């Protein structure tokens, strides 16, 4: 049951990171000069999404 819950949690995180990566890739293709700032933004956004996923992980094994 815990594993199923964690799997559901991963679906959301995977979608979130995928959307973020897609947006960054699109914007980089349009405007290559903002690459540095976009990368920081992407890492930040991924960290927020990943944190949700990790909270799910910790809750599922506790």
């Amino acid at each position, binding site marked *: 049951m815990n594993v199923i819950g964690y799997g559901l949690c991963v679906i959301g995180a995977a979608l979130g990171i995928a959307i973020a990566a897609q947006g960054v890739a699109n914007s980089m293709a349009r405007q290559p000069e903002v690459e540095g700032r976009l990368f920081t933004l992407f890492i930040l956004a991924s960290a*927020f999404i990943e944190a949700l996923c*990790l909270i799910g992980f910790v809750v599922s*094994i506790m």
Partner: protein
Amino acid sequence: MGDAFQQVSDSMGELIESFFTTPIFGDATVGFTITTFYFLLACLIMLAVIFAYKRKMEGTLVPHGVFANGVEYLIEYIRDDVCKGTLGDTWKQHFPFLATVFLVVMFGNYVGMLPTWKAGTGTTGVTGALALMSFIYFIYVGMRKKGVFGYIKSLAPAGLAAPIAAVVWVIELFSTFLRLITLAVRLFCNMFAGHVVMGVFAIMTTTFVQPMLMQFTLENMGTGAMSILWMALLILIYVVELLVAFIQAYIFTLLSAVYVQLAEAEGH
């Protein structure tokens, strides 16, 4: 091979147990725990690094050598990227606090990356205290800027009709207190989950190689060969965790900076 997987899942409980903090004296609520010890150690290492840097920079303004340049690069990274980037004109006022938070969290994270050591930030107690500090700091900054009453009122954006403003105010108050929890839980979960994943791969490596050491048969050699794969994955996860330790310190500082900026901002 099935046996090996069974053994891994049997030792999971023990692994997770080993990441919970154990008191050296006193108890886990009030007392000196193993995590507190490593956190203290991290702070001491941090102070040693900073004093060594100061000693090296005495009488000169130009950093020489890898060490002095590395420390300066780190500090300038916080200054330019976090403070100047998010805070704007008032960055000078908040830089000492933000740099301290960054260094404490970063050293706390990196202490746990050394084999057999534990992360100083690996318990909700330590991360909660750090989050509380930053929470009190940004509320203090907001209250100093706008006055106690002004800050409380400024949680809701100005220019809304009275009934809507009341609803928004309650939501904003709730989300302000939620910041405290999310700051603490994010850091703790990242450290805890990272160490659990590394621990699982370390256990897998040893469990898969064990039958080969006991009895040298062809089948056991196949199982043993798989532990090379687990070892490679362990090293990969370790590298990722080195990155995560830095990114989490960066995010903790950046979010503190954003909250300070929001508390200071005039209107919305």
